[in-house]
């Protein structure tokens, strides 16, 4: 008989905390980035100020469908997070994340702005670059645990990281693409580089932008949580690992310039696929399966 607190109350609390932790991480991200550039940087709560301010701005809707899609992006991201915290199917999680991305891309194509269109195309390319790596990672998790359920990871007696170190590193690439960090930030831009204005986010403003921002935090938290599950027996170590990779992605963001989409596809596919395949071959040869 499963404990009702552990199986229902705790996941719901975790799900509610997802956007807040994500926002805090974004604030810490901006602070660390500023310090790396020998600046002081904004307060850690800055992302929350941004979202509250955006919510209070006068609505500026370019098409009737746009708010629906912005809400869809946030909603599907939250749904994917719910699938993760309730320990359901990893494949379903992947499809829900893809649906959230489709919402974002459809919203960017739902206006006549050329910047928004370029951003949407590039967002599709970044989906193309991380989605296969994510599918392969989930298939590897299946080979290690013989289950597509998140619960399967927890039924292992030892951490998943010992079986799948290559997959963990490959997920790092997914994290950087998903966070829209520097070598792979082709679809949207912040700060100085504005050759496509704000890319896929150009046509959002006011509360639609706030929803997209929240959805972005949830998706970032989603990938970080999957990484934390690589050390499922002791989740504190898992969270530490995820935060370590978060920090690595900030370092990479600060030392690498933006790549073209061709180099982005080459990088994620060659490194991602090679790491995962090598990992799987080793797993089969050592008889871990």
């Amino acid at each position, binding site marked *: 008989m499963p404990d009702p607190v552990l199986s229902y109350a705790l996941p719901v609390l975790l799900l509610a905390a997802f956007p807040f932790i994500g926002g805090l991480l974004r604030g810490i991200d901006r602070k660390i980035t500023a310090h790396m550039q020998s600046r002081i940087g904004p307060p850690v709560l800055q992302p929350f*100020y941004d979202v509250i301010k955006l919510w209070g701005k006068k609505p500026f809707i370019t098409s009737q469908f746009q708010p629906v899609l912005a809400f869809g992006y946030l909603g599907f991201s939250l749904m994917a997070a719910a699938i993760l915290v309730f320990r359901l199917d990893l494949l379903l999680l992947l499809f829900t994340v893809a649906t959230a991305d489709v919402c974002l891309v459809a919203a960017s194509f739902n206006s006549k702005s050329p910047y928004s269109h370029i951003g949407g195309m590039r967002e599709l390319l970044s989906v193309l670059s991380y989605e296969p790596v994510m599918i392969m990672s989930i298939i590897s998790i299946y080979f290690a645990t013989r289950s597509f359920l998140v619960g399967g990871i927890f039924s292992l007696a030892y951490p998943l990281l010992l079986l799948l170190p290559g997959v963990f590193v490959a997920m790092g690439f997914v994290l950087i693409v998903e966070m829209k960090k520097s070598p792979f930030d082709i679809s949207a831009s912040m700060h100085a580089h504005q050759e496509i204005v704000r890319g896929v986010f150009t046509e959002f403003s006011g509360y639609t932008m706030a929803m997209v921002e929240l959805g972005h935090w949830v998706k970032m938290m989603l990938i970080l949580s999957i990484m934390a599950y690589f050390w499922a027996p002791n989740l504190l170590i898992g969270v530490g690992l995820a935060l370590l990779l978060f920090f690595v992605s900030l370092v990479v963001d600060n030392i690498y310039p933006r790549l073209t989409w061709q180099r982005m596809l080459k990088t994620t596919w060659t490194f991602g696929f090679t790491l995962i395949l090598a990992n799987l071959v080793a797993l089969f040869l050592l008889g871990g399966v």
Partner: protein
Amino acid sequence: MDIMNKARVKSPWVLHFNCGSCNGCDIEILAALAPRFDVERFGIINIGNPKQADVLLVTGPANRRNFRVLKNLYDQMPETKVVIVVGSCGSTGGVFYNCPNVLGGVDKVVPVDVYVPGCAARPEQIIDGFILGLQKLAEKGKKKVEGR
């Protein structure tokens, strides 16, 4: 709505438009963004997108070529917003005063809230202008609440 106003003052996103300036003021604005003055510690980001911006930062005099662009950018910014003009040219027309191709200060085209004079205005002055602009932003926010 106090939280909303606090957030508004703490996160002004800037749209920087060069209205035919000599780039002197623009370099000073970039200096304000760079590590020495680092205006991002006040939450100021050069966002480059009128639909998400709160502050329109204009340099240079309004002229017959680009006043439509300036007007368009101003109209694309959703409320609440303030306009800050940086430099002598933007404030009054400066050395271009009475030129046939120049309309004069930016206030001939869009309503201006804060003037930062100087040729070129220094980063300290620009930051001071920002503080004044944020006070006006807060006032506008309060008015918006009372107007409802």
